[in-house]
């Protein structure tokens, strides 16, 4: 059982929901990424997703794409992310996952990616462009090594396919709230609650909702139906303001925002 599995098992037994922030590795640099991971742990988030910058992301909206570009321009290298994660291992006790394009995982090598991730302290990976049809090999390797492979389900995924995706996933299922790319939205689709509710009845794998979630009101509305909620662009947008002079300030602002969202999720019954 991975640390992520343990975390969700505990939350479920306590009837609580998870908040999962997403941040981009290396934006503006890896030290800042490490600091945020430490902050999140202290604040009490359930787990954190760390986006691996990629030159050609397609699932991401402008906010996250720009963060990838900033990280790459400042010289981001995957091995440095692994080294940073290892260095702060003692200070980060929450489960952390990478979100990486399959282009990157394939280039590194499937087994090697899992090994290096685990050595660094990551307990799983979200691979937004690895469809269930192409996932057999990676999914098996992950299962053999107790490494979580988090796959995505979307509003356009037919129901029998959702079940198939659930069968090759572990850790949690990432339910994409909208047909589209990542980014903050005011309105979320009304049928979302029914769709997530249906999927949760089909599988024991926890279901978390992501894409477009940014406000405590979203949390209050979606919290009851999901195992957890993922918040990305709203945090990455705040990171975009960080520079050498105001780091403490930006960290403080993100901490306040995350705690506000946590308060909302902890209030969910």
């Amino acid at each position, binding site marked *: 059982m991975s640390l992520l599995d343990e975390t969700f098992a505990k939350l479920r037994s306590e009837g609580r929901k998870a908040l999962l922030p997403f941040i981009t590795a290396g934006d503006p640099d890896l030290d800042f990424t490490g600091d945020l991971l430490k902050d999140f742990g202290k604040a009490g988030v359930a787990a954190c997703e760390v986006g691996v910058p990629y030159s050609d992301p397609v699932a991401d909206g402008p906010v996250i794409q720009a963060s990838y570009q900033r990280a790459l321009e400042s010289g981001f290298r995957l091995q440095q992310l692994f080294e940073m994660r290892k260095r702060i291992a003692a200070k980060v006790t929450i489960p952390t996952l990478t979100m990486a394009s399959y282009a990157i995982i394939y*280039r590194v090598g499937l087994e090697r990616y899992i090994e290096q991730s685990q050595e660094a302290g990551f307990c799983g990976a979200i691979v937004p462009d690895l469809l269930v049809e192409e996932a057999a090999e990676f999914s098996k390797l992950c299962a053999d090594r107790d490494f979580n492979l988090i796959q995505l389900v*979307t509003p356009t995924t037919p129901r029998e396919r959702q079940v198939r995706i659930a069968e090759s996933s572990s850790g949690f299922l990432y339910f994409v709230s909208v047909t589209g790319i990542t980014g903050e939205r005011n309105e979320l689709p009304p049928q979302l609650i029914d769709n997530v509710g249906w999927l949760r009845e089909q599988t024991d794998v926890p279901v978390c909702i992501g894409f477009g979630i940014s406000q405590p009101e979203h949390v209050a509305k979606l919290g009851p139906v999901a195992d957890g909620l993922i918040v990305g662009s709203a945090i990455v947008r705040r990171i975009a303001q960080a520079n050498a002079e105001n780091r403490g300030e930006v960290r403080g602002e993100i901490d306040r925002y995350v705690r506000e969202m946590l308060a909302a999720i902890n209030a969910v019954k």
Partner: protein
Amino acid sequence: MSGTLPKALSPQSVPDSAGRFGSFGGRFVPETLTRALDELVAEYDKAKADPSFQEELDGLWKTFVGRPSPLYFARRLTESCGGAQIWLKREDLNHTGAHKINNTLGQALLTLRMGKTRVIAETGAGQHGVATATACAHFGLPCVVYMGAEDIRRQKPNVFAMKLLGAEIRAVESGSRTLRDAVNEAMRDWMSSVEDTHYIIGSVIGPHPFPMMVRDFQSVIGREARVQSLEAFDGKLPDCVVACVGGGSNAAGIFAPFVADDTVRLVGVEAGGRSSEPGQHASPLTFGRPGVLHGSYSYVMQDDDGQTCDVHSMSAGLDYPGVGPEHSYWKDTGRAEYIQCRDDEAMKAFDMLAKSEGILPALESSHAIAKGMEVAGKMSPDQNLVICLSGRGDKDAMELARLRGEEW
């Protein structure tokens, strides 16, 4: 042309039902696009089996595009090379000036069949954008074209033409501001609009079924060239077929109908750019490695972290770090060979064709002309070599003037 053109969209042994050409191809896209891709596969299968679809497309190719395009004997070029007889498959004579229109009309018809009401596309050199805007104007479909800001600068005449045809151009300012960034942006649009929008991909790239479907539509080039060759060469097929390869649609189109003919040598010409240094060329089949880009598994220019490398070609249509998966398959199986042509060699070939034959080739096609001449020079005069002249060079006139430091 009196020979009969094979009617059905040519059946091929690859890809398999998962869209794999050997190990290449497949689908590496966000889950959001799966349903649209499945719908496209289903509709394309139905269309292939529906004679009225092929009939309508054939009719459009004939009366709107001006097909068949001629197979032209380049006498003065042949004399100057002193080897094989050089023939040009004149896709530059198509309506809108390139082979791209063959595919966009096919996909626009599919858009209507699927009941979708909006089209998006991306373009590098602008030829695919113009061809998509044209097909959309023909059918009354609204059309948005994504184009890198750098390519907009290089291809002003095509940008203006697209606007005249009623398309909306969206400049892409991210990354290298070229074709690859335009593809990313178009994919993102599609993710959000997939319910009512079809994305007309312009090359044999992207997730299944695009590489197969675009090849099939473009195969009209090779099917015609085959019939025309048999007529012109006393019942013989060409000894060699040469085409430029960016994403590789014109090459796939002219190669595919000859793939089963072992006697026909197939030569693809990649953009050699300024040199073989990283970042100075756009030759994934020569210098790249198998990897994932834009939805399929194929040769890609990537660094050790899997990040896509910057590439260069003076030709906007070849300035792309990936290549269609079927070319990767042909390369690895040895069925086709892939060589490079540098910017300066292509430029010389442009001048050569302009002055010896009175034809201004597109800069993309100039790469095929340059290497076609070289290959022909090493063959014997009783052999025939066909070069796919994929597009005309008018669109490149301003860029050529800039490269040569001439006033426009």
